[in-house]
């Protein structure tokens, strides 16, 4: 059986000998307090997406850019670009939804499966070596979404 954990760590340590994964031993849990069809949903991706008019992620940072970008609720594929050089963009270029399933979620709102989508979604650039700043930014992101009345977040890696 392939041990992806060891393989990935080994590959990363060729570039960053000091690297190790961040480990937690418990899970924060927020249970849904109402049915899904009464919930507001936000998408969050680590795909490095951002508006073409927004500042790109800084790929020169040694430990990775932990900041996030806001994607407006009405965003279209043509509005976006990707600043993330560690995955192949051919799939997302062909269909935004295989990374950021905004059109699918709009269908669920229309069908009444979820009540609404957030006015803002979030995008990180997930290639991060030093995770301490990322943890801080994730709490900031959570507060940001909470302020928008978001109940549920659906997250995708790349």
């Amino acid at each position, binding site marked *: 059986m392939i041990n992806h954990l060891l393989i990935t760590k080994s590959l990363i340590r060729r570039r960053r000998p000091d690297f190790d994964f961040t480990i937690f031993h418990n899970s924060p849990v927020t249970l849904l307090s109402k049915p899904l069809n009464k919930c507001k949903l936000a998408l969050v991706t680590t795909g490095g997406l951002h508006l073409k008019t927004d500042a790109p992620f800084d790929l020169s940072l040694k430990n990775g850019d932990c900041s996030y970008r806001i994607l407006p609720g009405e965003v279209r594929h043509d509005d976006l670009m990707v600043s993330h050089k560690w995955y192949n963009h051919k799939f997302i270029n062909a269909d935004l939804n295989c990374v950021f399933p905004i059109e699918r979620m709009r269908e669920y709102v229309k069908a009444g499966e979820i009540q609404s989508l957030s006015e803002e979604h979030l995008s990180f650039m997930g290639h991060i070596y030093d995770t301490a700043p990322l943890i801080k930014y994730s709490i900031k992101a959570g507060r940001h979404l909470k302020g928008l009345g978001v109940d549920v977040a659906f997250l*995708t890696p790349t």
Partner: protein
Amino acid sequence: MCNQSVGLIARGIEASGISTVCVSFRKEITRLSRPPRILSVNFSAGKPLGNPGDGNMQRKIIEAGFSLLQNTTTDMTILDLPYKSSKFRFL
């Protein structure tokens, strides 16, 4: 790396009082950060919801996430999805 980041971000958002579910194509990495709900998929980097244009696959994964969100859980739950995508050929 993204499979670690997605779990850590889910933790921060969950701690803010928002229920989260995160997709992962390397669950052995994501699980180290113990986000509460993981959808484990068999896809490769760059297409966590399967091949471009495969709306049915995207719906299956999202609906599995909706199901997981409605479960009562007090600790990390991992749902292993059996779906596989065929090699995608660009026209």
